[in-house]
């Protein structure tokens, strides 16, 4: 399965662009997260990485499909 992922904030630097395509076997948010962590170890340093599916916060066990809009939202501290 190929999932299109939109990156926000510092995840843009880590993924190397605003959007990335992630290929993986699994169909859950957890599988996607693991795949991203393996491919981009720097994401693990964020510790809390919010993943939204179709503009809604997604739990790890949520099933995703290729047509879903997936977003990676990192914590931001600047003020």
């Amino acid at each position, binding site marked *: 399965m190929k999932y299109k992922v939109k990156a926000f*904030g*510092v995840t843009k630097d880590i993924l190397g662009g605003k959007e990335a395509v992630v290929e993986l076997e699994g169909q859950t948010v957890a599988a996607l997260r693991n795949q991203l962590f393996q491919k981009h*170890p720097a994401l*693990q340093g964020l510790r809390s990485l919010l993943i939204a599916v179709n503009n809604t916060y997604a739990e790890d066990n949520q099933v995703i499909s290729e047509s879903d809009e997936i977003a990676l*939202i990192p914590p*931001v*501290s600047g*003020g």
Partner: protein
Amino acid sequence: MKLSTDEVKRYSRHLVLQEFGLENQLKLKKSKVLVVGAGGLGSPALLYLAAAGIGTIGIADFDRVDVSNLQRQVLFDINAVGRNKAQAAKERLSLLNPEINFEIYTEKLTSLNALAIVQQYDVVLDGTDNFPTRYLMNDACVLANKPLVYGSILRFEGQVAVFNYRKTDGSYSANYRDLFASPPDPASVPNCEQAGVLGVLPGMIGSMQASEVIKVITGLGEPLYDKLLLFDSLSMQQTIIGLPRGNSRNSIQKLIDYDEFCGLSLGANKNDMKEVTVQELKELIDSKADFQLIDVREPHEFDICNLEGELIPQAEIPSNVDRISKDKKVVIHCRSGARSGNMVQWLEKNHGFTNLYNLKGGILAWAREIDPTMPSY
């Protein structure tokens, strides 16, 4: 409570605004809002909240105005440089609206004083610039049952949300910990000093926060609770993410040590971190010693000035650990020594390095003490 003749004149555009009216103006006058951080976000937020006629505004900031703040912190001018921000803000805002009662807090908010301060207000606006204070304000607002209007910025993007909002059914909306349960490793998310910020961006995000504060107080419209707004000034795209009903609330029982929670005070570790001064580094270079020099700044900072070190921006360190030598002296530097210090500690803790030295004072110290022709930024 009534409005004086002067106040009727001052707030006339609110009073003639049909949905707003006298009733809501009086709600603002009765309200107390605490703004934590009088910086990029706090500047526009304070200006608009003072202009709007909030009865009491608390301003918490222990920092001093620096020339580099003026690019975005529109509350201040050159006369404020070097002065405490809360004090300078109060004086500026008193000229804008003398009707308002200002309380200032020039000491740092900590686990010891935050709750007592937050309890005196109706709404808190988070304009802070670091993770420990963000978690502190979140937890203090949860414990005190106060709504927290959150905003944060970096580069060209911002986030806004209303946390811990009491809904009509009596339950509370999601809070910061429902989004980000654990703080990031200190080195993994840059701040504005490191990665920069478009000066006008906090103007936009801070104004959105002020607008949310007014909505929370008056009940107008739909406050941004159980939602996170993401704003990108480059594309002008705004995305609103729906958040879950929070369940982190029960885990917040008391205020904790937030520096420790965010991995910033590693106690003995930090004191144990090995350092070299710029003079010692110069000796290493001049004597052609066999050592590795790593620069963890960003490529565009490297272009401004550099020490011909190997460039590995901090975000790329975790995936480039194998490029760092384990069998000779390694000096790591950044602009001021903060980022590189974090990287030294992270590498020691996670990869067992024992040969790393942080350059004390960073390239700024080099420019000051070794090479005055080098540009400082």
